[in-house]
């Protein structure tokens, strides 16, 4: 039972919703409790990135944010990016490249890559590293994740220059 119930309203994957929470509940806990289980608990201290979601288009660690802080904001989780039958371009590249080992880090990686693709037009290595260096992979599959992402970014950049 909640000790000090409060409500928080925000947009989650395009739908405006109201949730009951407590002042000290973290956004990650609320999301997972409400069925958005793609965001994972890894370190709980802002270092691993497995809990990454987007807030107003920017990648944030949901393990550090209090649910009450996101009132009125727009939250996007991995559940908004592709499905098993219809994966996003990056998800498909990860599969094709055999880049997923245990998979725990992958939702966070995809959310950071989404922020990168939506906020930038040029994807030089330094910019890509800047967006991705807050996501760790304990299976150390960085090479394949990087190559899969690079393929998507190279295509996107080529399209950007054409249009």
């Amino acid at each position, binding site marked *: 039972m909640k000790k000090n119930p409060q409500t928080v309203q925000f947009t989650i994957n395009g739908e405006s919703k109201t949730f009951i929470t407590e*002042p000290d509940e973290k956004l990650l806990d609320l999301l997972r409790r409400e069925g958005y289980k793609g965001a994972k608990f890894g370190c709980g201290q*802002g*270092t691993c*990135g497995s809990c990454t979601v987007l807030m107003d288009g920017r990648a944030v660690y949901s393990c*550090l944010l*209090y649910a009450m*802080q996101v009132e009125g904001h727009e939250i996007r989780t991995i559940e908004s990016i592709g499905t098993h039958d219809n994966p996003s371009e990056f998800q498909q590249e990860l599969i094709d490249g055999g880049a997923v080992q245990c998979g725990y880090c992958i939702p966070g990686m995809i959310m*950071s890559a989404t*922020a990168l693709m939506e906020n930038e037009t040029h994807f030089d290595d330094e910019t890509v590293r800047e967006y991705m260096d807050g996501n760790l992979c304990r299976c150390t599959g960085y090479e394949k994740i990087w190559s899969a992402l690079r393929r998507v970014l190279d295509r996107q950049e080529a399209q950007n220059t054409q249009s």
Partner: protein
Amino acid sequence: MKLCEFLRPASLSAARDNLRELGTKGMILAGGTALHFMQDHTPVTAVDITRLGLSYIRPDGNFYRIGATTPLSDIQRYRAPRWAMHEICRRISTHQIRNVSTIGGNICRVFPWADLPVVLLAMNARMVVYSDHENEYSADEYFATQPAKRFLDGNILTSVKVPALQAHHGFGSVKVSRTTAAFSMVTIAAVLELDGSIIQSARIAAGSAIPFPRRLPNVEAALVGKEAVSEVFKEASTKAARDVPWRSCEGQSPEYSQHLAEVSILDALERAATFAHGRAE
């Protein structure tokens, strides 16, 4: 800290009144990323100040004014002639943290690893604090002790005024860390004011590997009136041990910290000289 209540005041004066009423039971909440480091589980009421219009960066006379709740990522992305604050912001933790952590949160309760106090000390920035009216503090005054003490009476940091560097000013900052997102092993920032090739004034500050961020007056004194050349920078950097006892930090010995500080001071001074002579923006 354990949050028991959560308030979202609609104005700065309402936030101040909330905080005054709550006394020690109230706590300003900006990005909230530092609460993880404050593990004493004291029950507090969070007073969220992120909706008070304090997130902005704008030119203001001879200064750039940065609102207290401006996220580090906005400071990193901002560009203006001879703007220099982005360098250090890019080096703070990860982009997920920088999207949430604010400049105010970084300098109102200073942790040993905090990088911004070092840069703001070197830059001679001014901190604007709201109580019944706004008071301005120089960086030397503001960082003389732990600034958190200043915010016990419901006071709120509203903005930071960073001097706009002039053509004859040079700025350089160096943060040494084992990985991109790791805490600093040593952070150094330097501002040089040049008259031709002669150093008119110097502000050099350090952080991490010392108890609290501070300026290095012996290093500064060894620069003033001299030519801005490598030999002078090198000689000045050897004075670092006179200013402060360097201590072990992030697994390094005190001797190593001192050595790291000396080479970082040299590096920061070289960068400042390059900046003064016209850097690539």
